[in-house]
């Protein structure tokens, strides 16, 4: 990978990676750091990464770094608890569909959230998501199903949407 190919990868995939990591961690600054780390890893490894696989490589590295970060910060449960609190307190206030969906996504367990985001935002198939997250295709499918089911239930609670 040449310097220009690397810079092109920054233009093409940095926003998508940031969005994925931002929605996963719930914190833009953390997501920015992870994006930077991911691209730094790409730069170091650029000789071994084929241009056609750059996107999946970046997401794989970004995902692993995000998991490491969450584990280090011991935020896995905290994030879910926060999201749980937020989602449970949302009944009394007016929320648009996008807000509801955002809160619903934030309230999902990490494996379900990652699977559904990669599916919907990035258009990955089950196989790619499985490779990226290190799980089986069937598990990915179940995760996406559970995610959609929970989101459907949350959206369904809001009469305003219906």
């Amino acid at each position, binding site marked *: 990978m040449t*310097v220009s190919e690397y810079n092109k990868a920054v233009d093409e995939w940095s926003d998508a990676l940031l969005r994925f990591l931002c929605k996963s961690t719930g914190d833009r600054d953390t997501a920015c750091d992870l994006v930077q780390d991911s691209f730094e890893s790409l730069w170091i*490894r*650029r000789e071994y990464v084929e241009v056609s696989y750059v996107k999946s490589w970046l997401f794989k590295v970004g995902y692993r770094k995000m998991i490491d970060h969450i584990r280090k910060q011991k935020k896995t449960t905290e994030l879910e608890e926060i999201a749980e609190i937020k989602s449970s307190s949302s009944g009394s206030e007016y929320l648009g569909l996008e807000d509801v969906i955002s809160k619903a996504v934030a309230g999902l367990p990490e494996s379900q959230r990652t699977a559904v985001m990669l599916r919907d*935002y990035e258009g990955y198939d089950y196989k790619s998501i499985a490779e990226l997250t290190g799980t089986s295709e069937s598990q990915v499918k179940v995760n*996406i199903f559970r995610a*959609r089911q929970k*989101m459907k239930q949350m*959206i369904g609670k809001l009469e305003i949407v*219906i």
Partner: protein
Amino acid sequence: MNPEEEKDWMLFLLLEGELEGEELQKVEQLIQENAEWKKAWDLMKLSVLPEDSSIALSSAEKSILKKRGATILPPPFEASWMSYVAAASVLLLAFWYWGFYQTGQTPPQVVQSEANPLLTPEKTAPAPNSGTIIDSSSTPILSDKSNLSESLAPPTQLTVSTKKKRAEENIAFAIEAEQINIRPLDPEIELTPSSPSYIMPGFIYTKTFGDAPTNEVGNKKMMALMGNATEWVNNTRRIWSAIQDPELSFRRVKTDQGPGLAIDFNSHAYGASAQLIVKNDFIKNLKMQK
């Protein structure tokens, strides 16, 4: 699965485009005819995350991620730039050695840590002479060559430090050369064996990552600064042949000793950094001599 869950599962498969034939017709018919299925289907469709372009990096943030080699220099110039940097670095080390040769001093020996080299903070060899540091950009100060010859002491000190650069997989293995002779930028000053020594503190380090044999890489780099002049040049050539996409940057620095110019070199496997500093006491001495 209970009936509700089974309904969700079928709607999920429909949403994912995995239903075919009779199953597909059956579900579509249920949605059309059954209000509950219709409502559930409408909700299931909403579970698809909408496109969100609100989260994006600013152009400034992107430019930080990008590598400047490509933006500053068009591709046709990259090869010549590499050659230039490589040649300059070989010269730099050669001149360093030349300084010792001229002054009849023993070249510095690399102090190697006996403990784990990746975790040892720093070791320093003794420094018989302190050496004077001069900023090559200070043309007026450099105008009097005879004064410089007397004022500048030869390089005598080499510091080796090994440090863990990051807590993660990237580890920097640093060798610091406190004083390295370098050719001044002033075109009026010729660098000959009789020219004064221009002293440049700097260091060269290797980056190791992933499965790379850390110690082996570190030792290779250390070899570059040991042995006789021929070995230095040969080792340096070997290093530079491995360098790709080098970046060179300059920045102003202010130190306790005086103002200066820092030069940073970075590439895939090797990096170097140096500072040219005008020592405050050196400026004072020159003024007094005048």
